[in-house]
């Protein structure tokens, strides 16, 4: 874990693995359950994985409020790390950050992987692109997010439970309203200038697979793969299939072009 001071914020960045550089932007939840996923990615890429401000237990500065603030912070990070050409992979909330980065400045990116990203609203005002997860019962929320079996919170330590609560707090901090999206982002998707790989769980009840299809159609040349038997976190429920897709997709091809 490295601590990097950028733009008045102290970022915790995990750096692990060997290979071409990948910026991994974590989803909102269950950091400790994602360790296996990151380990597998680290066999193919050198992973730079920052902890999003707030989710890391530190309070962001007063004027650091929006997902685009995190995007600019990470664009600064990529420059500070001296990464000339990096593959970026983001899941859910992390995928939204990745999209905000990509539409602003793709010059240091070579490919973009997105697992069920938040951030883009494509439906009408009375439609929910994102299920109101905070208004669902625990059972309904679990069913929306997981195809097979949700994590057992009774098996979580106190620190892990605090992390769950804090994760939700910061999703709300950045994205309570408009809910989980930037109303402008849909308009600028044509600016994503790198090969893009969208991965979706077939049974995602939080952000439905139909949304993924509409999103793929708006990003130039994007490829969409749907994994059966997975909900919103296919990297947890169908780890091997997810990793295989990433290793065989645009992210890996771009990385290969860059060499070691």
């Amino acid at each position, binding site marked *: 874990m490295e601590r990097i001071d950028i733009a008045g914020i102290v970022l915790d960045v995990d750096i692990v693995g060997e290979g071409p550089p990948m910026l991994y932007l974590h989803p909102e939840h269950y950091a400790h359950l994602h360790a296996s996923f990151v380990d597998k990615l680290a066999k193919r890429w050198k992973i730079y994985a920052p902890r999003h401000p707030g989710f890391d237990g530190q309070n962001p500065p*007063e004027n650091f409020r929006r997902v685009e603030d995190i995007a600019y912070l990470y664009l600064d990070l990529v420059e500070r790390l001296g990464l000339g050409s990096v593959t970026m992979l983001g899941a859910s909330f992390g995928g939204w950050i990745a999209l905000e980065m990509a539409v602003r400045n793709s010059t240091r990116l070579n490919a973009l992987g997105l697992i069920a990203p938040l951030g883009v609203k494509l439906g009408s005002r009375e439609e929910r692109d994102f299920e109101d997860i*905070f*208004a*669902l*019962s*625990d059972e309904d*929320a679990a069913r929306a997010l997981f195809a097979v079996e949700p994590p057992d*919170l*009774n098996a*979580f330590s*106190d620190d892990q*439970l*605090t*992390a*769950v*609560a*804090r994760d*939700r*707090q*910061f*999703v*709300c*901090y950045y994205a*309570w*309203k408009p809910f989980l999206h930037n109303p402008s982002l849909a308009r600028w998707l044509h600016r994503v200038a790198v090969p893009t790989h969208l991965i979706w769980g077939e049974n995602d009840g939080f952000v439905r697979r139909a949304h993924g299809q509409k999103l793929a159609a708006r990003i130039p040349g994007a490829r969409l793969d749907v994994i059966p038997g997975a909900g919103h976190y296919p990297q947890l429920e169908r780890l091997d299939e997810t990793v295989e897709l990433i290793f065989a997709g645009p992210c890996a091809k771009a990385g290969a072009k860059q060499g070691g």
Partner: protein
Amino acid sequence: MQVWHFSEMAYHPGWEELGNSLRNVIPSRVYDPKVGADLYHRYLDEWAMCDELGINIMVNEHHATATCTTAVCTVPMAILARETKNIRLLCLGMPIANRMDAVRVAEEYAMIDVISRGRVEMGFVKGSPFEVTPANSNPATLTERFWEAHDLILKAMTTHDGPFNWEGQHFQYRQVNIWPRPYQEPHPPVWMTVSSPGSAKLVGEKGYVVASLNTGYASTPTIYNTYRTAAEAAGHDVGSDRFAYLAIVGVGETEEEGRRRAHQILDYSRTTPRVARQFWFPPGYAPADVTGRMLTATDPRTITLRDGSKAVMQTGSVDDFVDAGIAFAGTPDTVYDQIKEFHDHVGGLGHLLMMGQGGHISHEDTVSNLTLFSKEVLPRLQPL
């Protein structure tokens, strides 16, 4: 001691059908406006009669619920500002963190203060956790928004030489200039509700009236003592008029009648927890470690009795609630003794917020409850 009659203007006819979910997602087809109209007028009549009884009035505000149809606190306040002449009008409270136009809040309170000729008492509250849903109020930034609204409302009320600018984090205006200005100088007295010593400290620093709702024998002294310490340190005078306490009150000609009235009103306490779990712990409303612990907690809400044991709130008996100090019930003498005992236990109490109506208690019983209290209990409380 001042006494304030409080009712939530509940739509109790819907409670049986709605069962265990009384908030936020309940369909309004359960609400019959014809029945609702009769209820509104009944509750307003009960408040209005307080003008002759020497009992002040307290209103609150809740949304999307059958437990309280005061969706807009200023509506009954405005009606009573005109229908009463003597008693004071307390709102406890205006959920200022959930109101997206703080200047409008200042205007509402100012108008009612003028119409009532200076009888408003101005409560500012954060609002219950489940209230963020109807207001779509971000729970993760709620406390920050609350204090910014507080600062802006008070500045709007006390600035008399023309418009001022306010481009804050949550509220942006370039010409704040409210008309009317309030009747009372510098502004109506401010009240805040607290449920923990931490928030009591903040209210103490400001010197506002601190109101503790149903915190009973077990928790109230710590809250009041924390307030006292903070208020004295900040240089405020700390008389008993700084301390307010909400309790259910049932007075009768006999013990049994008083207890039966309290038992009916206590359905307020028994129905308060009837809301889907996910609305109790919105993200960021409470600190992450507190909310984290609640993720796997299954215990029902409880009240604490004087011997330290707990009773389940949803099913508590009158005895439980009286023991806990949440209800005062019986004949006028009994009720006076209970209030006096509580008053002494907490080191002085200037305001009794008396829930004199609630649940399925009838209009006749409510009138009798309030009238008997006014004649037989209130005169003995006034010297306290």
